[in-house]
């Protein structure tokens, strides 16, 4: 049957990855109708929600897994996938299993996780440090210490694109790296306000203040423009997800030689297991429902997982598949994953609403030098205390 699938994967690599799904799905005798909406989740999500609540649901739709779709599930608009999951033994194959947890509500499974994002990376330009006469740092503290020397050499220490999501990302990475994964999970998962008010977090905010001053002179919008500054040596480093690697590769740079990658800022090597998941709205049409089940199964099958994630450049959600084509930095990531140094993404721990408030705080803090680290922490504590 024909099945309309909506998602916001429109860039070249993403589209190619989606095509793998489509190919496999079409091969199973169904037809994939592509409903791509570019922009970010912010553009696409209201459209998807409107479609579902408006009574004209698509066959399947992408969501960042986590709690975004919680209410839709509660409202009974999303299909219960528990049968299929049990049949496919998802509990066993999905690794890390926390991914499946975020798809679970009241013991029932409602979504299919398809990949793992890893965003805790610091990318450094070797040439820039050479020029400033400092060794390439191996962790955040060294990096921050090198900032004055870099500035003296006319190099912007840290490149940050000004779109809010980039600031937020940088902050979250700082938080997990400096305060450690446990503190992170406590604060976001258990909303531990005492911890948020403590010493550990104070360090995080100080580091953020450092980052703020280190990036004061970077004025670019897009993340890839920021990456470009690192590539050209205008800036010394950037905190960005693994997708930044693509830019280095396009520019012909080699990991370790031209640039250095430090997962978890070299402090706490962890990977946030956020990612994308697919949900299946409840449909009346039996034929289509069957097709939904087929698609769900298909998405988690080892072949499709490999094909998809290779194109997407992300990590597969199955521990039992092998990625040979991955590059050095990516392999570092796989290693960390294998060691189990993983944390859940904030999406999975906290409601979108509370998260937005916290993100807004980060963005404001990062863009307004008149807010001191202490002030920001105080506000952060309030938000955590009231979060759900």
């Amino acid at each position: 049957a024909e099945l309309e699938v909506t998602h916001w994967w429109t860039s070249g690599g993403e589209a190619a990855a989606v095509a793998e799904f489509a190919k496999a799905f079409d091969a199973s005798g169904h037809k994939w109708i592509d409903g791509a909406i570019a922009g970010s989740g912010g553009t696409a999500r209201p459209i998807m929600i409107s479609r579902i609540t408006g009574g004209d649901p698509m066959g399947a739709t992408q969501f960042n897994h986590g709690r975004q779709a919680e209410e839709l599930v509660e409202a009974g608009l999303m299909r219960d996938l528990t049968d299929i999951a049990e049949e496919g033994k998802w509990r066993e194959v999905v690794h890390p299993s926390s991914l499946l947890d975020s798809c679970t509500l009241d013991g029932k499974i409602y979504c299919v996780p398809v990949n793992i994002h890893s965003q805790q990376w610091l990318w450094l330009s070797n040439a820039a440090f050479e020029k400033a006469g400092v060794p390439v740092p191996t962790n955040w503290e060294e990096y921050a210490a090198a900032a004055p020397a870099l500035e003296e050499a006319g190099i912007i220490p840290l490149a940050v694109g000004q779109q809010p999501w980039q600031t937020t990302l940088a902050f979250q990475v700082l938080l997990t790296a400096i305060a450690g994964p446990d503190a992170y999970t406590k604060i976001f998962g258990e909303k531990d306000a005492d911890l948020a008010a403590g010493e550990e977090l104070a360090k995080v905010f100080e580091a953020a203040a450092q980052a703020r001053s280190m990036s004061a002179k970077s004025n670019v919008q897009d993340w890839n423009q920021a990456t470009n500054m690192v590539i050209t040596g205008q800036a010394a480093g950037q905190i960005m997800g693994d997708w930044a690697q693509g830019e280095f590769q396009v520019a012909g740079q080699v990991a370790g030689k031209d640039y250095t990658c430090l997962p978890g800022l070299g402090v706490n090597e962890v990977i946030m297991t956020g990612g994308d998941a697919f949900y299946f709205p409840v449909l009346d049409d039996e034929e289509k429902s069957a097709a939904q089940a087929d698609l769900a199964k298909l998405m988690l099958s080892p072949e499709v997982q490999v094909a998809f994630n290779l194109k997407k450049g992300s990590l597969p959600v199955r521990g039992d598949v092998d990625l040979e084509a991955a590059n050095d930095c990516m392999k570092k990531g796989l290693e960390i994953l294998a060691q189990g140094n993983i944390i859940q993404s904030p999406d999975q721990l906290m409601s979108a609403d509370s998260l937005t408030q916290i993100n807004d705080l980060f963005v404001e803090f990062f863009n307004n030098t008149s807010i001191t680290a202490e002030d920001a922490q105080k506000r952060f504590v309030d938000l955590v205390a009231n979060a759900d």
Partner: protein
Amino acid sequence: MHEARRPNPLFRNLSAKIAAIPMILTALVVFAGGTIWTIIYSFTNSRLLPRENFVGLDQYERLWSSSKWIISIQNLLIYGVCLLVFSLVVGFLLAALLDQKIRFENTFRTIFLYPFALSFIVTGLVWQWILNPQFGVEGIVRSLGWTSFSFDPLYNADIVIYGILIAALWQSTGLIMCLMLAGLRGIDEDIWKAARVDGIPMWKTYAFIVIPMMRPVFITTLVIIASGIVKVYDLVVAQTGGGPGIASEVPAKYVYDAMFLSQNLGQGFAASTMMLLTVLIVLIPWAYLEFGGKKRG
């Protein structure tokens, strides 16, 4: 002679009333109904889906304690006042220039008006690019040798709203000019002659005689500009996405973000209600002026 019974007034001009049903439905169900619905749900803690879970004024308290909202309001204020003033002034000046019996009037008018045909998305995009410090005006001027030149409104939180204003003016002054031109053309030729015979300089004629006579045009224009100001969203999204940081947030974007990004409908509805309230405060005096007592003579 018998008395004719007064027919039921409901059935007089029935076709007119039937024909007006779409309007009545739109006004009552969509606009009034939608507004009331929005207001009611602004008192709930609805998240992704509307729910009748009333929480009193919580959403409003949070709204007014959110610095993003405060900045949005401030931005709207700056943007609104500036756009209103500048587009009226520029629009009027252009119209006055075009009204000087100049050659190529049509060409100039077309040039000033064409941006109006483009969407805000397009406008935002082009101006984002022109104001880009690397490629745009700043880059060009610097490459010409003036290296200290700095013009990067979109990257400077203090003035970003003016960067948006530049694009908004570019897009909308054409229409204002058209309205003003139409108004100027509607002024009795004899007034100009009388002023010339009286020896009144051109600028005084405009300032003290013509502009006061154009009151109706200014009112229509005001309605059009003001409705655009309140709704400003696309332009900001296309140009800055609200950045740098939250420096260029506007209320409509706040509403959108609250409803769809943070999935807190209640918060979005509370923000909408505040916006609608502001609109009402502006609109009621206008409606009174338009319809209050004064009927068509």
